[in-house]
């Protein structure tokens, strides 16, 4: 189906939170792909640059790669077979309604994703609260930036990834990049780092690995996994000791300094050296670089965030900004490099267990009343807060847990921690309904698979890491029978008795979202599709202005006051504590996990892109030569990693760029090389973020063993595995 609406369509990349501008050019009928990706040099974030993932984005549109027909499974253990939309939707709606009637509404769950457009995230939340009336909705953003979101709100009273446009990075004096490998995960952002360095600024990278990003750094600090909280406290200690506290800023624009200072005094440099392994000289140098310039930024990513103390760790880095007056001022501040494409917008509009649209709290009576009015329901009928993503997944198929799950745009069989456990929970569901573009490892377990339209086939807004609301536009019609997610929600809602209120048209959905968000923190009410197009995106908050004086949007936050009740930023009172699981005699090494340049998240799209798969065909285990020598392992040899939760195998990749006490494994692959079979489901007490970034493992040379009774995707071959069959 190669239908090209117009020769060129300006849109954005389907992958990460930069949401790089790109242009799609329609190709003639008969071409292998319906469109090709070309430059869009006028969009400010990436100024035309794209990484390999963006360049090759159109490959997932190829016929045969993606789902084009609904699938149903007639019996547990049986194969998936093709079905009509009516049959599949009837089956899904019957399961959603039947489970609710039989076991109570909260026995129905909804699991969303950070790649969904704002419109989808909004209507998915509304679908859960209004059509299903379940409290149990959450999404994979919990696994992404929830710790930074919580720390943001604790400190600033507001959570937006970056409080400034990304381009400001080029003009700041120093950037401390904590646990981000942006050179691999968002390559077009590197230009701002380089410009910053060319302008005389310096880059400090904190990462247990010498990543491609660390190679760019003026100073690389390599703390042991799970110790960056101590590192941040140690740097704050030196800031105090060396007289770099901006006392006027602390006095006039912050609160909570005394407790934060006392905590820092308990983390003196020599102690921090003992905890982190980073020599005191390195701590000193970092403080010199950060305080020498008149401005500075600290940017965190998944490293500090995906820990069972992620909120505290991010809070400690924010403290460093606050103590030095590097927040709430031009060219300075703390920011989170959000991961997923709509990680930002996805958390603002109601697919999070405790939130309603506009970043409102579902526990706040005023917020409930406002949203209920927009939705035309009684506020008393709205459910309360549900449980977080991992807790939701861990409850599947259990007594009192969720028995029927609607899953949209997520692949937890690969991306959730302790994935063997999660997989077995998913298998215990009465009914799993998956809306996805491809037959992901999770979709392959579903009872009903609803084929979704994807990025170039549908229109909708996304909110990038800067809080910039941008517009993706459809360039081609959905392939085969695929329908947009909005269309699917509309169809399901209708079957559940809600003919109205679930518009399939994205602009209509956005209009309702604007009204629902009005007056909330993430206020979109002044934003419309026309403005987004005319202004290269609009930064929220953007309340509705007068016709002759529209609100300009808010590219830079906090310059006058922070969004707390008293306008002051709050220091976090935090102390270092160990990871949920530290190495011991039985599991003597740290495992840390992450991403590679040519793959994205659970790999559902990128593993189906030949160009990317050639570049990164399978998982691997990074280890230091001394560890390799001790284990008697050579380059490329198959290694088996074992944790208390599972086992994974992948070939050795020996590099001096990693600590000898740590191994690294990327998490994009399923089956035997699934890193998340190993990771720990210890949760942060506030954000409920699982501890992806540190757990204890044992590493051995892999011995080929026949696995007894393989189950689910555990039996899928490992590196470079074949994709699951549609019918098996």
């Amino acid at each position, binding site marked *: 189906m190669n239908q090209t609406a117009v020769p060129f369509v300006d849109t954005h990349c389907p992958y990460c939170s930069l949401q790089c501008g790109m242009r799609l050019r329609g190709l003639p009928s008969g071409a292998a792909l319906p469109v090709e990706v070309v430059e869009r040099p006028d969009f400010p974030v990436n100024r035309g640059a794209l990484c390999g993932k963006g360049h090759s984005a159109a490959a997932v549109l190829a016929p045969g790669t993606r789902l084009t027909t609904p699938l149903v499974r007639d019996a547990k253990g049986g194969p998936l077979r093709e079905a009509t939309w009516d049959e599949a939707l009837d089956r899904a709606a019957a399961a959603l309604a039947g489970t609710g009637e039989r076991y109570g509404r909260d026995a129905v769950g909804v699991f969303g994703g950070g790649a969904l457009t704002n419109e989808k995230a909004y209507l998915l939340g509304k679908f859960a609260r209004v059509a299903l009336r379940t409290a149990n909705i959450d999404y994979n953003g919990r696994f992404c930036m929830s710790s930074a979101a919580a720390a943001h709100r604790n400190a600033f009273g507001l959570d937006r990834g970056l409080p400034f446009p990304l381009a400001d990075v080029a003009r700041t004096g120093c950037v401390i990049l904590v646990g981000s490998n942006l050179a691999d995960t968002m390559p077009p952002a590197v230009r701002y780092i380089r410009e910053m360095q060319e302008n005389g600024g310096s880059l400090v990278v904190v990462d247990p690995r010498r990543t491609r990003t660390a190679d760019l750094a003026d100073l690389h600090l390599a703390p042991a996994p799970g110790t960056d909280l101590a590192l941040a406290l140690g740097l704050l200690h030196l800031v105090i000791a060396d007289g770099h506290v901006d006392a006027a800023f602390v006095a006039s624009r912050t609160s909570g300094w005394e*407790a934060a*200072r006392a*905590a820092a005094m308990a983390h*003196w440099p020599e102690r921090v050296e003992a905890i982190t392994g*980073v*020599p005191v000289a390195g701590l000193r140098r970092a403080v010199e670089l950060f305080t020498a310039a008149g401005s500075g930024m600290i940017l965190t990513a998944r490293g500090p965030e995906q820990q069972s103390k992620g909120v505290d760790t991010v809070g400690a880095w924010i403290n460093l900004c606050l103590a030095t007056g590097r927040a709430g001022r031009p060219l300075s501040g703390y920011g989170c490099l959000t991961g997923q494409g709509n990680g930002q917008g996805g958390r603002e509009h109601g697919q999070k267990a405790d939130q309603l649209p506009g970043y409102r709290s579902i526990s706040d009576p005023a917020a409930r009343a406002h949203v209920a009015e927009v939705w035309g329901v009684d506020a008393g009928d709205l459910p309360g807060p549900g449980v977080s993503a991992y807790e939701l997944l861990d409850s599947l198929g259990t007594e009192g847990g969720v028995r029927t799950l609607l899953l949209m745009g997520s692949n937890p069989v690969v991306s959730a921690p302790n994935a063997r456990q999660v997989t077995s929970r998913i298998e215990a569901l009465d009914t799993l309904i998956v809306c996805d573009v491809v037959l992901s490892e999770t979709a392959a377990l579903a009872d009903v698979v609803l084929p979704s339209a994807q990025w170039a086939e549908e229109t909708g807004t996304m909110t990038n890491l800067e809080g910039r609301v941008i517009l993706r536009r459809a360039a081609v019609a959905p392939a085969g029978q695929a329908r947009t997610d909005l269309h699917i929600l509309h169809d399901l809602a209708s079957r559940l008795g809600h003919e109205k209120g679930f518009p399939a048209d994205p602009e209509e959905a956005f209009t309702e979202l604007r009204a629902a968000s009005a007056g909330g923190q993430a206020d979109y009410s002044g934003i419309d599709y026309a403005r987004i197009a005319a202004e290269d995106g609009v930064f929220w908050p953007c309340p509705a202005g007068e016709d002759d004086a529209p609100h300009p949007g808010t590219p830079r936050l906090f310059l006058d006051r922070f969004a707390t009740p008293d306008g002051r930023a709050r220091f976090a009172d935090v102390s270092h504590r160990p990871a949920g699981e530290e190495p011991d005699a039985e599991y003597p090494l740290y495992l840390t996990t992450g991403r590679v340049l040519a793959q994205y998240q659970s790999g559902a799209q990128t593993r189906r892109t030949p160009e990317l798969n050639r570049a990164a065909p399978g998982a691997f285990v990074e280890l230091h030569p001394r560890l390799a020598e001790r284990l008697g392992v050579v380059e490329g040899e198959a290694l088996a990693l074992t944790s208390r939760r599972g086992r994974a195998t992948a070939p050795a990749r020996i590099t001096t760029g990693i600590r000898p006490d740590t191994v690294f494994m990327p998490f994009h692959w399923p089956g035997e090389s699934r890193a998340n079979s190993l990771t720990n489901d210890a949760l942060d007490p506030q954000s409920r973020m699982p501890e992806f970034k540190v757990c204890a493992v044992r590493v051995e040379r892999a011995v080929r063993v026949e696995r007894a009774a393989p189950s689910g995707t555990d039996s899928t071959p490992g590196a470079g595995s074949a994709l699951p069959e549609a019918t098996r």
Partner: protein
Amino acid sequence: MTAAARRIAVVGAGMAAARLAQQVLAQAPPGTLELTLYGHEPHAPYNRALLAGVLDGRYPPEALTLPTGGATVRTGTEVTGVDTTAHTLRTASGETLPYDTLVLATGANPVLPPIRNLHTAPLGPAPAPHGRAAAPLGRRPSPPPSPWAAGPPPRGGTGGQGGGPSRSRPTGTPPAQPPTPADAHEGPAHPRTAAPHADLKQGVHPFRTLSDCTRLAEATATLRAKLPTTPRAIVIGGGILGVSATRALTALGIPTELIHQAPQLMERHLDEQAGTTVRRALESMGAAVYTDNRARALLGDEAVTGVELANGHALTCDLVVLACGVRPRTGLAGAAGIEVRRGIVIDDTLATSAPDVYAIGDCTEHRGEIHGVTGPAWAQADTLAARLSGKDPNATYTGAHSTARLTAGALEIAAFGEVTDAAGDALRLADGTRGAYGSYKKLVMRGDRLVGAILVGDLAAIGELTRTYERGEPLPPRPLDLLAPLPEGAAL
């Protein structure tokens, strides 16, 4: 079933006590515990590891305050007795207070070296052990009737690290000086004095507490204003503390001489070559160092005017700083009938010989070991916190590795384990061009294990070495590889 909050009394408000309080209250369910610290010092708990930084002006004294997690902290409160049967403790002001759980975190006292004329009053003969039930904990202040013995004499040599043989000052000395202003902020009506060093000759300073430190800083400032020339200081003791004090005084522009009895500096932690590197570093900072020298007597009547060495030489000075190590403060425990050897004896659960009484920190002896450093003290505090808070009621402390670690201006020193050549095969690397004072590194190996190491001047490998040592990892075939900073480019 609503149980009343359990009352945990902690005698002492030093680093171990603060850590315990912060950890217990962070982990315990809210409202289940009432935790009170009783500290005889006038200050809230502070970070003793940073005192040299107060002396050289890097930290204002109030910046050293440690978090205590919201515990009740009673400063200036001397606990004078414990009744382990009745579960009560008694304070100097006459209060009797009940506890459910008692934690002794009484810390350590500075060791006073056997030097003539150290005190303003001549020493009397040592009386028989005091018959009173309670020995006070106060270094300063404490009520006059109390003896101020630091506990039984140490067995098998000193608990100190730098000063050679020392002795416990005899008990029963009457108060000799009126209270200093810092002491007079509250407390009983009788004169307060008789802390172990309250009657030291004017100009003689121990270097253990924040008050010691601020008094020393004030004394240097006063002397500077009073004297026509820059005041001169002598530091007695060349362990970590003495080296640190010498560096800090030198940084203040005070001409400083260090007298050390052993043939080299920091001989408990370093080998001869490392000691020499440290000595050269101090000398290039402007200090004079006399090793293999013992101070025999202080000179001067009212105030100290100099130090006479055992070899007959006399050095003139206006200030003397005593840095001769510390010894566990066990008097209170001993008087309460709790088992004390060199320190208060504890088992792997941090329990003493008395029911519901635990002990942590510098005052303890665990498996025959006493420590005077923060690492093991905090490891003990963390273990006890896990037990008392209920987070891990079965947590145990089986000992902790301790690294001697000193940052003295631009001079960085780290050492652990066995460092003499006799301990095993040694690998040495010295580089006179590295860092401000050159670098020296030594690995000591037995078989394929690292049993000790020294790093002076370049600590890039510290994380790698301590992990290899503490986890007992086998050495790589080329042990020198351990000294390469890792990952490449990670350190400086």
